[in-house]
Structures are given as C-alpha cells and as structure tokens.
C-alpha cells in the first residue's frame, strides 16, 4: 500500500534542530508510522521494530546538527532507520519473522472489520513478510522504500547511500528473487490439486 511521504513544516524541523523538544515531538508524531513500518518490514518483529524506531528518533535527536536543511528530511530520517535496521538484521542470528496480528488489526482501516477481510489481510501480510525475508537486509531496505514509501530510484539512492545504478540492480535482482519464491509458493499450493487430479485420472482410467 503506497504512501508517499509528506514532509513536515520546515519551521518545525528548524526548531527541532535547535533543540526544541516540543518541535521534536511533532517530528516524532509526523514520521512515526513510516519509520516504524520500515523497521517492522526490515526486522519482522514488533518488539524489535519498536526498539529500532525509538533508536532512530533518538539518533536523529542527538545527531540533528548533521542534517542539512537542503535535503529532504524524510530521506535523512529513513536513512538513519534503514542503516540501523540493516546493521541489526545482519548481526542477529535469527532470520525469521513473526506476524503481530494485533498490530495488523490495529493498523487496518476501520472499514475492514469483516472477519474474512481480516483473515485475508493477515495472509497478505504474511506473504509480504515472507517475500521480504528471502532478501538480504540491504535489498530488503530498497524494496521497502520502493513499495511502502513510494520512493523513486534516486530518492532510494539518497536514502541508502548507494549509487542509482546499484539501486536499480539490487531492485531488479530482489524482484527476480521474490518472483521465484512466489512461483514456488504457487506451485506448492497447486501441487496437491495436481496430485489429486492425477490420482483421480488414474482411478478413472482404472
């Protein structure tokens, strides 16, 4: 679900940069969802995502002087989040993911209260997380920025610090890798039907 980032008022950014805690609170309110979503998609665990998102804002607060106002603030902030999550994902031994049903339910739009819709939403979430977690952490960051934050290749390059060509190559390979997983998943779903169908045909032939 694409969500293009809307920048917060530059005056607020300026005040927060000068150490105004109230202005920084507004910055946190404004960017908490994109930062948290990036962390959640990268790490696949609600508690780890919470910790990573908090750490991102803490780093932003302590390193605010390194932010250059001529850059997009969202890119700078997500760059902190992406690098932190990439490092964290590389360091940890556990590579799986867990789906937080409560979190999915809380985040679902209010018109999706139908239980069937909820089940389908959970399945979609599980599918998306499964695909993401077949990728390396840096490719995963690129895919999340592309699909969830609607960033152009240039914006992704600014955020991750990669070159534009490197982002293109990584996105290309990531999509191919995920396509392969999707095909294999589709095959697994259809295989029992094939087996059942061939059994039926054999029974019929016999």
């Amino acid at each position, binding site marked *: *679900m*694409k*969500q293009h980032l809307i920048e917060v008022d530059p005056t607020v950014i300026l005040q927060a940069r000068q150490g105004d*805690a109230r202005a*920084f*609170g507004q910055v*946190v*309110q404004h960017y*908490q*969802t*994109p930062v*948290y*979503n990036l962390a*959640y*998609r990268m790490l696949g665990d609600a508690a780890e*995502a*919470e910790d990573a*998102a*908090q750490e991102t*804002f*803490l780093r932003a*607060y*302590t390193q605010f002087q390194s932010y250059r106002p001529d850059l997009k603030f969202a890119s700078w902030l997500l760059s902190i989040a992406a690098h932190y999550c990439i490092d964290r994902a590389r360091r940890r031994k556990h590579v799986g993911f867990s789906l937080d049903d409560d*979190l*999915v339910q*809380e*985040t*679902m*739009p209010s018109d999706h209260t139908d239980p069937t819709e909820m089940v389908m*939403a959970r399945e*979609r*979430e599980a*599918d*998306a997380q499964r*695909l*993401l977690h077949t990728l390396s952490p840096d490719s995963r960051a690129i*895919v999340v920025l592309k*699909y*969830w934050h609607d960033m152009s290749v240039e914006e992704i390059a600014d955020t991750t610090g990669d070159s534009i060509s490197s982002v293109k190559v990584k*996105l*290309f390979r990531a*999509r*191919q890798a*995920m*396509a*392969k*997983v*999707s*095909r294999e*998943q*589709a095959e697994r779903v259809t295989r029992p039907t094939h087996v059942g169908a061939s059994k039926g045909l054999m029974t019929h032939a016999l």
Partner: protein
Amino acid sequence: MHSEMIERMMLALDDELSADEQQQLQSHLLMCGACAEEWAGLRAAHEALTQAITIAPRVDFSERVMMRVVVAATQKKSRRRDIFGLILFVLGTLGVAVMIFAAPLSILARPETLALVVREFILLGHVAAAIYAWITTAMRVLGQMLGSGPLLIMAILMLTITMGWARVMSGQALPKLGVS
C-alpha cells in the same frame, strides 16, 4: 530476447512502458512459456507487496520516544557539565602550578633580579658574621671577667644557634670573610 523482456517486465511493474512496448510484451508472453511464468511470479510478488498495509506503531509510541529523548538530553547535559568541570579543574591546577613554580622561576631567570637576590643573601651573611663576631668577643670578655659557669654555657648555646643561622643564611659568603 528473454533478458530484454525481463527488463521490460520490470518497467511494466512500475507503469513505465509505452503502449507499443506493452503490446510487444503481451505478444511475447503469449508465445514464450518461460517469460509468461517469470511474469506471473513478478506480478504475484509485486501485488503481495503493493497490497500490504503500512504498519503503524502502538498509540503511545511518541510518548515513549520523548521519554528516551528527555533522558538522553539530560545525560548529554550532565556529560557536558562533567567535561566542562574537568577542563576547569585542569586549567585551575595548571594555573596554580604556574603561580607556584613558573612565576618565581621567571623572576630568577632575569639576570638583574638574580643578582639582587644573591646580593641580599650576601648582605645577610655579612650581618650574621658581624653579629657572630660581636657575640663571640662579648662572650670571651664576659668569660674572662666571670670565669666558666652558666653564662658561658648560655653564651655557647647562643653562639651555636647564631652560627647555624648565619651558615644557612649566608651560604658560601662566610668562608670569604675568614669565619668558620
């Protein structure tokens, strides 16, 4: 041909193909099973990702962040105060050390000041030697007059103290005067 078509598939996912290119891709997919399979996989993954929602944090997330920010800011201030205090302490210690050691040394380093100090010490030595000579003479006269006794002992004691003081104060000046 396949790699070119896969590149087109990627562009198609981002809606970056012209109508003609789309038509060519569609035609190719109808003829090529491998590319059709690749396209199906790419579409499935693309749809899974585009349909996934943006997960928001729990409602009190910003409050928790701000609590950590306040703690970090306090620690930062405290650290800054500690560093400032340490710098002040080091500077203060250096200042005192300069006052104690460097200032007298710098005075003595000047030849005219050093000569003045040496002259003063020599003068003190002369005075002490004169006093010593006067006391010994007086003691000798008194001894001759009174003979040995308590006065002589006291005189010797005073003489010893004066000699010691004179030696300390005049340094090498005494031998020059011929007084040991």
